[in-house]
């Protein structure tokens, strides 16, 4: 059975048994990578070099805030790789292509850094759901290499140390608390490796990325302190087609309900298989608000639909071109996720803020649990 004390003792022993000249730790400020670096530092002290890559896909001010909050615990070096990542990723559209390209760019940059510092190991915060989803073909997590047969020693010139690979998020949090990681990091909501690049759904452009950055801040502030596990914004082109068959499936739940599907696709997981399917949006008056949480079985059972969005407000139409979705879930281990029963009022309030951006055409709320959706859209 897992206890933070026993685990820490065992891992420190294990790491001290390895032959390590020096190790680079890739820290994002998330609880997984931070805890990996902290526990490794306990074992090898200054032979560990913690770095944070500013990929350009992080939240507003995030790199500086992370380094500031970990001062004293980890002496993190900030490395600006925005140019490299923008050059590699802008213009990509497919979800898996983005994730794989991000991973390759990430490790090329890391590989160089490891060599430049004369190191031979890389420490990273891979946890159980990362390799389970990658090996299972649901989505490529950027930090999974060894488990899918990539020999890092030969390809990138470093050996891989993943002290948390068998743990789940709730166990990592318990461990982080035990190791004295600041609360702001322990309770920080998870953030995908490829960052906001996969929340700018579909074609990745600077314009869409900026809408996502701006919307993320508004949603994070607007839904703070509600006991949610993860809450954020995603954006994509507001290009839709009406679907008669899907509209028929929900018509008894309100008045004049219509279902359209977007041009972009979203990732889901159905029956243990990845589904890269359509995203549906329901518009119109519901009989009562609670019904919104009953929409998803109607539209995802027996179809290729992976996410069901309810259009909260289209009051923002000013020729904007991006549809912004509010996503919120509750979960402890991120293997399954439920949609919190948020009231309509609070969502409308957030939507009104989002509508202030001229690039935004309309706003929706994702009402799909995992499964059949995944928490992210790509």
């Amino acid at each position, binding site marked *: *059975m*897992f206890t933070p004390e026993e685990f820490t003792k065992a891992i420190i022993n294990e790491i001290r048994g390895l032959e390590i000249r020096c190790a680079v730790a890739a820290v994002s400020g998330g609880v997984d990578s931070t805890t990996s670096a902290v526990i490794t530092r306990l074992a090898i002290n200054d032979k560990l070099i913690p770095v944070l890559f500013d990929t350009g896909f992080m939240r507003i001010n995030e790199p500086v805030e992370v380094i500031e909050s970990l001062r004293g615990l980890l002496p993190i070096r900030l490395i600006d790789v925005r140019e490299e990542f923008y050059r590699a990723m802008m213009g990509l559209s497919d979800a898996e292509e983005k994730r794989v390209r991000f991973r390759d760019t990430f490790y090329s940059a890391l590989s160089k850094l490891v060599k430049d510092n004369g190191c031979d190991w890389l420490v990273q915060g891979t946890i*159980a759901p990362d390799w*389970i*989803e990658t*090996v*299972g*073909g*649901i989505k490529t997590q950027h930090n999974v290499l060894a488990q899918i047969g990539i020999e890092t020693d030969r390809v990138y010139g470093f050996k891989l140390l993943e002290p948390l690979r068998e743990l*789940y998020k709730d166990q990592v949090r318990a461990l982080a608390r035990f190791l004295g990681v600041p609360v702001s990091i322990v309770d920080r909501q998870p953030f995908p490796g490829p960052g906001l690049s996969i929340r700018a759904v579909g074609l990745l452009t600077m314009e869409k990325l900026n809408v996502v950055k701006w919307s993320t801040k508004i949603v994070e502030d607007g839904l703070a302190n509600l006991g949610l596990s993860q809450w954020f914004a995603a954006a994509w082109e507001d290009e839709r087609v009406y679907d008669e068959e899907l509209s028929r499936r929900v018509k008894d739940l309100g008045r004049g309900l219509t279902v359209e599907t977007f041009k972009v696709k979203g990732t889901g*997981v*159905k*029956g*243990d*298989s990845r589904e890269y399917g359509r995203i549906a949006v329901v518009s119109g008056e519901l009989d009562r608000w609670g019904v919104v949480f009953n929409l*998803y*079985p109607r539209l*995802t*059972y*027996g179809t290729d639909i992976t996410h069901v969005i309810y259009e909260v407000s289209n009051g923002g139409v000013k020729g904007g071109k991006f549809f912004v979705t509010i996503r919120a879930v509750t*979960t*402890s*281990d991120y*293997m*399954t*996720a*439920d949609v919190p029963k948020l009231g309509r009022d609070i969502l409308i309030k957030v939507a009104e803020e989002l509508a202030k951006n001229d690039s935004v055409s309309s706003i929706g709320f994702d009402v*799909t*649990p*995992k*499964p*059949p959706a995944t928490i992210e859209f790509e």
Partner: protein
Amino acid sequence: MAIIGVVNFGGQYNHLIKRRLEDMGFTARLINSIEPLNVITRELDCLIISGGSWNIPGDLPRLGNAPRYVLEFPGPVLGICLGHQLMAYEYGGVLTNNRPEFGGVRVTIDDEDTILRGVDKEFTAWESHNVSVEREPVGFTVLAHSGTVRVQAMANERIRRYGVQFHPEVKHTQFGDVILRNFAELCR
């Protein structure tokens, strides 16, 4: 101490089953279904056959020796999702692929038995399947149903075979720990 084998079909929650059992103080081991039956029989006290992305019967050739485990393993066997469908199929039940369920589903208990002891008459269970059991095999009793699927849980107590369509190992399934513990207690 008794060892519970978890047959790993690469499903999302296979590793999670092991974690839940270990959290409760049981010993669990992930096993590959290419292991011969006599090795499994010698080393393990009971078996959980879990989920995966394969369909029954189309993907039966990919399940290795799992069909033999279901029929011939001497100890208790619990099938979850794919494992439940495999159990129904091997004992002569009927499957269907047009009653999918994903996410939270209300499940109602029809007949309480060993594995559902201590569970409320109605509870929310988490599901992720396309295939399901339409008719239980002869000798099995239906223990629970949902609005969409008639056989959410089934058992043949005499031969200690149990099956659930939903996932007791995920946190969002109410009483999931109770159900896993009820089964694990049979292994001692």
